[in-house]
């Protein structure tokens, strides 16, 4: 009897080294939340480098200020709420970077400060922190300051590479299009030597970083694919109806915040749907809204609004696209 097996009789017979735990007994090590955030930062590098090159001091100062603000607001709020600190997961840094990259270089410092704080506080902390927020924190921050300080948020200047160091006043490509009907050359849009928000000018940099993110699997490729698909279809249809040689569907794809938004902002996992169909729906929804806003609304660009609008619909999209289990069809379940 003494050596009869069973938990009761011989607890952990052998060794203090042995442990029990629930299955699965192994986990994949190639990813963790921190690693994902690091990936986003790596992927943002080309964008950041281009913004340093084009906007110089403005870019450095905005990026620093936004990151510091985001991290400190998050740290402070968690203290205030008596919750464990969360800054080490790196998501506040990502929020800061993306928020800064969405600002025009000439935005005053307080716009950056207020926006970054509003983004983290209203966009993240009040929902309970990482993973719980409904809206993209960086875009909440941007929308807040865009509506609070519309005059300060116009992209009104940048350091031109061709003429040296002056701050030129020139309309962004989309504003030029909307208000004056002027086009911008594709080469400029690709390389980024135009006016605009810090991170949006170079289509190439966004593509490089974006492909890295999707290839790593950190961002779901379905979302940018959906966005680009919708934009291509809608702008091509509009182009066929009313051809504008100075502004082709390719211009629509590479101008404004579209690529930055499609690859880095729409893909924020927390605020996008989780199902496959849901991600397509989400991407296509964003693309469609961007085009609606670009063509019809009072704003030259609509990435931020579209992302926020689709964020708000994401829970619904998720709910309506719960996949059927393999082989399942509704109502066929055995009682």
């Amino acid at each position, binding site marked *: 009897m003494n050596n009869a097996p069973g938990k009761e009789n011989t607890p952990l017979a052998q060794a203090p080294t042995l442990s029990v735990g629930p299955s699965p007994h192994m986990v994949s090590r190639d990813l963790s939340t921190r690693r994902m955030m690091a990936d986003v930062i790596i992927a943002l590098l080309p964008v950041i480098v281009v913004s340093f090159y084009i906007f110089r001091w403005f870019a450095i100062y905005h990026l620093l200020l936004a990151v510091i603000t985001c991290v400190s607001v998050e740290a402070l709020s968690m203290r205030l*709420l008596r919750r464990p600190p969360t800054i080490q997961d790196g998501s506040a840094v990502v929020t800061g970077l993306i928020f800064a990259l969405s600002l025009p270089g000439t935005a005053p410092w307080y716009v950056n400060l207020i926006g970054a704080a509003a983004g983290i506080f*209203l*966009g993240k*902390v*009040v*929902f*309970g*922190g990482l993973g*719980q927020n*409904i*809206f993209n924190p960086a875009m*909440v921050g941007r*929308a*807040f300051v865009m*509506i609070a300080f519309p005059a300060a948020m116009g992209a009104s200047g940048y350091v031109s590479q061709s003429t040296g160091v002056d701050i030129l006043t020139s309309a962004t490509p989309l504003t030029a299009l909307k208000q004056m009907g002027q086009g911008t050359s594709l080469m400029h849009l690709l390389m980024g030597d135009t006016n605009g928000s810090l991170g949006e000018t170079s289509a190439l940099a966004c593509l490089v970083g974006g492909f890295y993110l999707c290839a790593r699997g950190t961002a779901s490729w379905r979302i940018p694919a959906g966005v680009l698909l919708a934009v291509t279809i809608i702008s091509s249809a509009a182009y066929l109806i009313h051809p504008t040689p100075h502004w082709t569907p390719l211009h629509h794809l590479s101008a404004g915040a579209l690529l930055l938004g499609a690859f880095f902002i729409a893909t924020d996992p927390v605020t996008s749907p989780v199902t496959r169909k849901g991600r397509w729906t989400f991407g296509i929804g964003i693309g469609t*809204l961007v085009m*609606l*806003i670009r*063509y*019809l*609304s*009072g*704003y030259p660009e*609509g990435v*931020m*609004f*579209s992302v*926020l*609008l689709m*964020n*708000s*619909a*994401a*829970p*619904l999209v*998720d*709910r309506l696209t719960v996949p059927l289990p393999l082989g399942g069809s509704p109502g066929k379940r055995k009682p």
Partner: protein
Amino acid sequence: MDLLVTLLLIAVGAALINNFVLHYFVGLCPFMGVSRRLDTATGMGFAVTFVISVASFLSWTLTYFVLRPGAPLTTWLLHREVDLSILNYIVYIFVIASSVQFVEMYVRRFFPNLHRSFGVYLPLITTNCAILFACLEIMKHVSGVEDPARVWGLPQALTLAFFAGIGFTIAIVIMAGIREQLDVADVPRALQGAGIAFVVAGILAMAFTGFTGVDRGLEKILKPAPSRHAASPSARIHSRGGEQ
């Protein structure tokens, strides 16, 4: 065609741009109170749409024919222009209360299924300001408008009401989806419930700002600027100028 464009613009305006909840802050009680679950929110949305349409129909009719200064019916009855607009509010509130009653009876009788799904919300709507607000908006375009070309007819009134209802439904359904997700989130205690719902509504209002100007954009496309150049051949006007 022009009427259709006008109706389209009213519809887009009421549903998206000047959303009743997110822009005018009306209908907040049901918006906050009945948006915890998706199915009840949908029911409430449809109930409001239904009642708002019926009530607007009645209030337009009464305002147009009876209440406004110079209304045809009163003029015909009393042989002079009278202004009964002081009774507007009283009449509207009774119209709303009775349309709710009427709608409830009708639905219960003829669409028992529908009644089961949203009948319970109907009485709640009586004191919903969205309905009264719709009546007041319609009044603004009917009563006391001096330019007869700008007085709203029934199509405009009904379009406004119906699409305001749709806009309310969109907002409450989105809100319900979000709140269902927030059920499983770790929202700070002080903000749970109404607090976080208001913050969400605020962010939604920011997001809906993106639609500003869509009606203007549509108008531009659908009604190509009416002959800014051609319409007034200036030479002829010049020649007429002397006669005046």
